[in-house]
């Protein structure tokens, strides 16, 4: 039996993406969820974060600890510098840059975002579009990241309400006229519970679009880089 990931390994494409959004919008949790649901977390890593979660008194396993690798980050429960994580599905191989949300660490966010093909912008459903969301969206546009995926997170805390999602999408669309990005999509998710991340949500029948993982696997990136015209460095 051969693993499906291995069969296409020498042909699979590479997609680099980054997560952006304000503090506590759940960037690290989302990445933890993506890795967990696509079975990219190893036993010894899981064991290590389970122990660490218990030490800090969390009831559920804190998936954010997977990427918050520095001592200071674990102590303060925030992301300070960009962390890179890797996983593969049978369709593609992914490099994720998990970036910090705090204003004072924006320069680290820029470092992580600069090499990305796609940016996931997270918005807390309870707070809607806030200043830091716009700042990160604008930086993504400035860096010329061609695809933006806006994830309205924590839908479980607003009773999976369609109206909340519509309102936030409209707000963001209003702002996006100022951005230089052609491709913007919206997905309602709950990173903590796993709705619409890898698996389709049972609680949001009103949403017919793709899950986040499906989008990441299928976004067309071959034309993003011009590999055809020769260039001569001077």
């Amino acid at each position, binding site marked *: 039996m051969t693993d499906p990931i*291995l069969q296409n390994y*020498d*042909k699979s494409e590479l997609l680099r993406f980054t997560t952006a959004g304000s503090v506590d919008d759940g960037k690290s949790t989302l990445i933890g969820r993506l890795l967990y649901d696509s079975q990219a977390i190893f036993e010894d890593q899981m064991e290590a974060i389970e122990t660490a979660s218990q030490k800090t008194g969390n009831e559920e396993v804190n998936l954010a600890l997977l990427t918050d690798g520095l001592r200071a980050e674990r102590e303060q429960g925030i992301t300070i510098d960009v962390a890179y994580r890797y996983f593969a599905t049978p369709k593609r*191989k992914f490099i994720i840059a998990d970036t910090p949300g705090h204003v004072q660490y924006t320069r680290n966010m820029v470092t992580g975002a600069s090499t990305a093909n796609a940016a996931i912008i997270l918005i807390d459903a309870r707070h809607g579009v806030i200043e830091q969301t716009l700042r990160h969206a604008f930086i993504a546009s400035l860096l010329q990241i061609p695809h933006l995926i806006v994830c309205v997170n924590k839908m479980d805390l607003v009773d999976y309400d369609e109206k909340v999602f519509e309102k936030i999408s409209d707000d963001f669309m209003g702002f996006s006229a100022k951005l230089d990005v052609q491709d913007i999509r919206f997905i309602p998710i709950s990173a903590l519970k796993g709705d619409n991340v890898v698996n389709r949500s049972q609680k949001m029948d009103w949403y017919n679009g793709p899950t986040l993982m499906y989008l990441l696997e299928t976004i067309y990136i071959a034309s993003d880089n011009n590999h055809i015209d020769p260039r001569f460095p001077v």
Partner: protein
Amino acid sequence: MYNYKISHLRELESESIFIMREVAAQFEKPVLLFSGGKDSIIMFHLARKAFFPAKLPFPLLHIDTGHNFQETLDFRDKLVKETGSRLEVRYVEDSIKQGKVAEEKGPNASRNKAQTVTLLDAIEELQVDAALGGGRRDEEKARAKERFFSHRDDFGQWDPKNQRPELWNIFNGRKNMGEHFRVFPISNWTELDVWQYIKLENIALPNLYFTHQREVVNRHGTFLAKSPYIQLTKNEKWEMKTIRFRTIGDMTCTGGVESPADNLTDIINEIAASRTTERGTRHDDKRSEAAMEDRKKEGYF
């Protein structure tokens, strides 16, 4: 117009080669840190590709703990001889004799930490301004945070809270006198990528990576090879096992896994199905949650 599409392995390869050339262009005295493990061997292979048909514009530097597998050393010497590369070796034993570092005691004693001192001395002695290393971000959570060009201060220390911006493929190698950089061209590779690439390019490896019979002791779930540097505790005994190694470092901290894999295809299948990371067999990382970060801050590679 034709369709130009490259696979992710080739994309990783070109990224690494670009960084190696960037190092040769920006720095005066780079070295390639070489331990004889598979990541070092890949680095060496990429470096040769980057500058071929010229010889490497920098020497290899091996920090010898004195606890290496003989197979690794033989492999290293053969590789150096065949390719006509330069090799510098510095010994942890010498640092211990000079009284710069004390040897650890007890059954779990390891020279892993001591080699930092020897490495920093070698960097100063050879006036190295950039040390290329085969560290990968998927290995460990502190490594996942490091830049390609990682700045080290006068004392060889890493400051994880104050790393430089690194945009696109622009790498900033500016530094003051006495400071240096650690550069990690294969940062974005995973263990699986490394093995796939070894297969794709048909790269030779020490036979430790393939299955063989060896006398080992089971300590905390990993199999440590029999050597004069390992003392048994009361309830432990040597036993014969069919094992191979997923990583190769010091004999005192590298554990083998039981495996029948004797070729690259089997190894790749085994790794894809594996539910633990390769550093799960490394005793040096299990010492505390931030073991790697602490060692890196002191100047470990």
